[in-house]
């Protein structure tokens, strides 16, 4: 057949018609649709046998019980454990994001050795054998040179056996420089130690309180054990109107807690102690205090005379003379009327309770402020009582045998601590983590030859990040035990990655603020996902390799053996139930409650007589208000910067997981730019409107941020979200926003030496 | 959607709506075929039609 144009056209038209009428197009249309429903790049979760494992979450000091739902060998969900005494089935935003931390790309897959410059992020994968050998060689060399005291160790604020292992290691090795990261409990322990004679954190009976006076505590922002406190908050809200608890929030910013409170009293940042003492003034003046307690179980309320005949003023005289509502009003900015009202309401409430610890309570804070707040609690007599406070109890475990130090260890351990804790200047504190970078920077190079970091991310979480970075520069050998590639790990020389908390055994002691002691057990829910090892095992291994008395201090085969040994008779219950609770624990009655030298609750803390000669002795020993002035003068830095903490934004050693970052409102972060909150009044003074770019500058650093106008913040105050500005981790967290810690310097508490920083002076420049 | 589909419901909405659709489609189909067939017949018999 000749193919001319006509035939061609006919043929084409014919075949087109033929194909159209055939089932082919229909079949294709259908197939394509089915293809779009089964794209290979959309994951199909594998099915498998469903099971669940109970454990404990240790992402924060809250210690919630968790139930991990598993499908096959995959963890698919973390839920609150039903019947668990802390959280009973509920869980917080961070805890339920835990699987993103477990499976995320920010995990460190194996031991790493730095291959590029510090912080450059170029790593070489090495074997565990190699990695440990290198650490051991370095430590051995230092020890042989008699420089064992030049090894420092920073551990998380957690009180479990792993932290203690590190402390023990340093002791056996021969260095005094074991430091735990800062937290609010440092100051609480100190205040309790001084006033009650029991150095433990404060346990609050929130559930039974009927009037909660919070001095800036972010009760529902992650303060204390977050889920437990939110649950208590719901109890306050549940009772019928008559019995409904009243919550009063003292804070310059309308935080979530302030928003949910019945009354929000904004005071100038840093003046909370003055208000507490002003309230005490009214309570004392109007004799609204609990006479039975004050008269019988306290010391230093009234003026007193010592054995040598010296006259001392008491708390009563102090507050009556110095903290009249008008004077306090001048300081705090709160009208006298409100102060008087608040004091009366507080004192007359059935079970009033004052809480201390700004934000999440993760910053140390001023000792006198803490004492002033607890003096309030003492005034209303709610010590060791229902709805009151008591020293936080612990479940006892077996004590490890004393470390037998060899000569090197003895001499190294005997050297003064770098941070100065325990010296005459800082008599009452164990560690001064926030002083450490400064101490390192002040001394000649080489004060610290090697640093071990465990469960902490000091490079990010410590105040004055610039100084911290400098201190790191001065340390030639940094070993990180981190699970994640955080900032500290990024600036380490060797990383010995720890198991994720869902992959390991560990003990967890009473969550912060709980009145009933609990001992709980983290257990491996899944086998290790990467080539990681338990930090406890690694440190035992290192000790054994170092040999001699160091090895002898660790008679246990491995961490699991040690844990079982330490838990003693509680192990079986722990393994079976996951926790041991002394549900019937009751704090001792007033008669036996106080272990102070006077045997009473001390308004006048005799132990402070020896310290801080800059002030008259009587004032020194009594809770009083003294401004903690941040760096910078008012003329140059007319504004005040405070951190804004949120439960949706983890600002501790654990980086915020992607889910939590996703849950952040768009008034915190826009792209990679951070918003700071400014009152519209202040903003209009600077000609700023919503979303404007500004340079925020403090004496420590400057940063470019965006303006978010918020009526809920005090004029002249700027709030910066705390927890962003990471430089490590991954694309889901790094380079988003600004690290608030960078902008704030360390302000040393004059008496304790702990960091009393609550903010910074600042100025803004419109760009 | 056809009346034998599992989602089909015997109600006014379906009758009216789908009914209209099928009517229209049917009409168009009939018209097209009518034109085509008539034209084909014209072509076969070379019928000259009066100009429009």
């Amino acid at each position, binding site marked *: 057949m000749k193919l001319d144009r006509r035939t061609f056209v006919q043929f084409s038209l014919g075949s087109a018609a033929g194909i159209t009428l055939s089932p082919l197009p229909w079949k294709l249309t259908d197939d394509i649709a089915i293809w779009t429903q089964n794209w290979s790049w959309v*994951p199909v979760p594998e099915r498998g046998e469903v099971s669940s494992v109970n454990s404990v979450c240790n992402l924060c000091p809250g210690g919630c019980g968790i139930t991990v739902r598993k499908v096959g060998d995959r963890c698919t969900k973390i*839920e609150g454990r039903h019947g668990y005494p802390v959280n009973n089935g509920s869980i917080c935003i961070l805890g339920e994001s835990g699987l993103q931390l477990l499976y995320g*790309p920010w995990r460190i897959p194996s031991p790493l050795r730095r291959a590029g410059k510090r912080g450059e992020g170029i790593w070489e994968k090495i074997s565990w054998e190699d990695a440990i050998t290198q650490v051991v060689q370095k430590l051995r060399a230092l020890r042989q040179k008699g420089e064992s005291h030049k090894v420092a160790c920073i551990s998380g604020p957690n009180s479990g056996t792993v932290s203690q292992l590190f402390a023990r290691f340093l002791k056996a090795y021969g260095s005094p420089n074991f430091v735990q990261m800062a937290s609010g409990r440092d100051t609480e322990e100190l205040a309790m130690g001084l006033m009650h004679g029991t150095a433990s954190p404060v346990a609050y009976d929130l559930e039974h309180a009927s009037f909660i006076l919070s001095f800036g505590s972010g009760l*529902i922002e992650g303060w204390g054990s977050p889920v437990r406190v939110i649950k208590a908050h719901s109890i306050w809200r549940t009772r019928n109107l008559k019995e409904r608890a009243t919550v009063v929030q003292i804070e310059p910013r309308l935080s979530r807690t302030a*928003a949910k409170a019945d009354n929000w009293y904004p005071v100038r940042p840093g003046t909370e102690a003055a208000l507490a003492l002003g309230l005490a003034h009214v309570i004392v003046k109007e004799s609204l205090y609990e006479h039975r307690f004050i008269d019988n179980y306290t010391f230093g309320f009234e003026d007193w005379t010592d054995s040598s005949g010296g006259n001392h003023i008491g708390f009563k005289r102090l507050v009556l003379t110095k903290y009249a509502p008008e004077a306090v009003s001048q300081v705090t900015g709160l009208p006298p009327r409100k102060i008087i009202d608040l004091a009366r309401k507080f004192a007359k409430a059935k079970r009033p309770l004052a809480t201390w610890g700004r934000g999440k309570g993760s910053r140390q804070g001023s000792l006198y402020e803490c004492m002033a707040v607890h003096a309030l609690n003492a005034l209303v007599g709610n010590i060791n009582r229902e709805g009151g406070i008591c020293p936080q109890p612990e479940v006892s475990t077996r004590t490890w045998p004393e470390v037998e130090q060899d000569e090197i260890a003895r001499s190294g351990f005997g050297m003064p601590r770098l941070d100065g804790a325990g010296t005459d200047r800082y008599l009452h504190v164990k560690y001064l983590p926030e002083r450490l970078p400064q101490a390192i920077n002040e001394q000649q190079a080489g004060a610290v030859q090697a640093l071990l970091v465990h469960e902490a991310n000091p490079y990010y979480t410590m105040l004055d990040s610039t100084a911290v970075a400098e201190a790191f520069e001065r340390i030639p050998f940094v070993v990180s035990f981190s699970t994640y590639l955080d900032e500290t790990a990024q600036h380490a020389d060797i990383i010995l990655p720890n198991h994720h908390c869902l992959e390991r055994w560990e003990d967890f002691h009473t969550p912060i603020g709980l009145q009933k002691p609990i001992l709980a057990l983290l257990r491996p829910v899944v086998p290790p996902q990467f080539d990681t090892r338990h930090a406890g095992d690694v440190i035992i291994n290192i000790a054994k390799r170092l040999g001699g008395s160091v090895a002898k201090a660790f008679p246990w085969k491995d961490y699991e053996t040690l844990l079982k040994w330490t838990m003693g008779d509680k192990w079986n219950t722990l393994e079976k139930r996951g926790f041991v609770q002394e549900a019937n624990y009751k704090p001792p009655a007033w008669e036996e409650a106080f272990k102070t030298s006077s045997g009473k609750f001390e308004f006048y803390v005799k132990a402070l007589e020896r310290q801080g000669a800059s002030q008259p002795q009587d004032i020194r020993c009594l809770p009083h208000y003294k401004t903690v002035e941040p760096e910078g003068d008012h003329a140059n830095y007319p504004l005040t910067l405070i951190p804004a903490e949120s439960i949706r934004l983890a600002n501790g050693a654990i980086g915020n997981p992607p889910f939590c970052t*996703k849950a952040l409102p768009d008034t915190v972060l826009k792209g990679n730019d951070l918003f700071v909150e400014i009152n519209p009044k202040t903003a209009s003074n600077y000609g700023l409107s919503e979303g404007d770019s500004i340079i925020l500058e403090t004496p420590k650093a400057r940063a470019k941020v965006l303006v978010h106008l918020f009526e809920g913040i005090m004029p002249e105050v700027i709030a910066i979200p705390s927890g962003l500005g990471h430089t490590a981790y991954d694309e*889901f967290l790094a380079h988003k926003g600004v690290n608030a810690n960078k902008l704030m310097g360390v302000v040393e508490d004059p008496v304790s030496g702990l960091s009393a920083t609550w903010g910074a002076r600042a100025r803004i420049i419109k760009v | 959607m056809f009346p034998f589909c599992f989602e089909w419901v015997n109600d006014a909405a379906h009758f009216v709506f789908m009914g209209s659709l099928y009517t229209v489609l049917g009409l168009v189909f009939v018209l097209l075929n009518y034109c085509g067939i008539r034209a084909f017949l014209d072509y076969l018999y070379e019928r000259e039609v009066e100009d429009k």
Partner: protein
Amino acid sequence: MKDIHSEQKTYKFGMVIDLDKCTGCGACMVACMAENNVSFRADETDKLRSITWMRVYKMTNGLPFPDTEVCYIPRPCMHCEGSGHHRPAPCIAVCPATATDRDHETGIVSQIYTRCFGCRYCMAACPYHARYFNWWDPKWPKGMEKYLNPDVSPRMRGVVEKCSFCYHRFQRAKNKAYAEGRREIREDEYQTACAQACPAGAITFGDLNNPQHAVYKLKNSPNAFRILEKLGTNPKVYYLSTKEWVRRGVDHYLEEEAQD
């Protein structure tokens, strides 16, 4: 829109959220994301393109410092009942491909991802912004797909998704009940992920028709209200608040309308 299951036990699942208790902590948002395989991206700050089946809104009373007040409003899909056959939920009425429908057994407004072809008419119809479009292919960083829940299929790009009241949990509970020879599921057997996680216990979930369920009593409280009630969407999500400005703040009122 079909009535063929008349012999079946039917429920009307709904939610009551106590705004006095809600602390705006966001646990519900993440519980939902974790349960329902919601994808995430490096930058989720554009909230107009961020999938959050459960989203916590913040409402302020508009007064200046220091009289400012704030209330948090968790907003799942309202699972609107609409009014009768002729006016179903706004989204159901408009979906051209019947990809969203009211489940006869549970009253849940469903969404069939594999059927949705992404016209987004339902999103235009929904006044609550409860519906979200997949503007991107969902991607999980390597290794993270391990935590995905096999009971919920991950969505593909170009389709609309929304809160399902954790429907798969209902099916799980129902299967269990049937296996145990029960026709009805118990209140505690079927709870949504957000209700389960909420640390404040602010979210109560259950059968609104069942007097034994907590939601039944709560929804009749004088403090109960719904968002945009006047539109007639008839949501199955109720809220509780003792604060007048909150109750009034979630709907429109003409100036002359007296305080209720």
